[in-house]
């Protein structure tokens, strides 16, 4: 299984670079993971999304899709794409250290 080093810690990732074990993630890793995705600084709304992703993963075993995020995170779809232009659910999952959410909508 591939690994990568984030904030000085070695973590397990899959071939696409998503964390395979969310418990290896810490908040200190988020800024570095975000920079890898071209997000220079994490704002409060970014953190709202990150914490929501973590919560959903912990409760349901999978992160939300963009539709789920838009409906329940308190951040609108429009804002989500401003925060994570390269795909909100996908990029937020990377930054939040959870597997890529699977869903068609």
């Amino acid at each position, binding site marked *: 299984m591939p690994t990568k080093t984030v904030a000085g810690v070695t973590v397990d990732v899959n071939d696409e670079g998503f964390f395979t074990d969310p418990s290896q993630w810490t908040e200190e890793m988020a800024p570095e993971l975000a920079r890898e995705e071209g997000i220079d600084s994490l704002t409060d709304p970014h953190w709202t999304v990150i914490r929501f992703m973590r919560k959903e993963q912990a409760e349901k075993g999978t992160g939300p*899709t*963009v*539709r*789920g995020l*838009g409906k329940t995170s308190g951040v*609108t*779809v*429009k804002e989500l*794409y401003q925060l994570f*232009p*390269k*795909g*909100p*659910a*996908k*990029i937020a999952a990377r930054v939040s250290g959870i597997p890529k959410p699977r869903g*068609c*909508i």
Partner: protein
Amino acid sequence: MNSQIGEQAATAGQPDPIEKVSVIISQGSLEGVYPGLIMANGARAEGIEANLFFTFFGLDVIHAKRHEHIKVASVGNPGMHMATWLGGVPGMSSVMTHMMQKQIAELDIPSIPEFVEMISDTGAGMYACKASVDLFKMEKSDLIDQVQDIITVGEFYDIAAGGHIIFT
């Protein structure tokens, strides 16, 4: 030449990711509309640039008064697994549409008007086909606000340049 071959070999295992798509929606039935909307929305979710082009009966999807009333084709649709005469019973299309909308909602898939608004919010472009708008004697004011423009086929190709085209 050699360097080109070398580059191809180096990237052979890793095809270029898709970066842009243009989805054409030409149908006006529920089953004809959803696939294109899902393709466009899914593209944006992957960070792929997406534009939608509505032509012919697909215009109903962006028609302010019609987009809430898009129905399943209950006649001439073998996928419904229903006798044609039964599909032709008055009101059958509405009944089948109602049933399918219920199932769609249970999967948390948005209704067509809501989906179109969401896709627009993702930053996808929405365009109406000029020939179809003229054919059906529509005006820009008949269309929902999310429609950026009514464009010709040539303008469509300009917008689609450099990406893949998906016809539905």
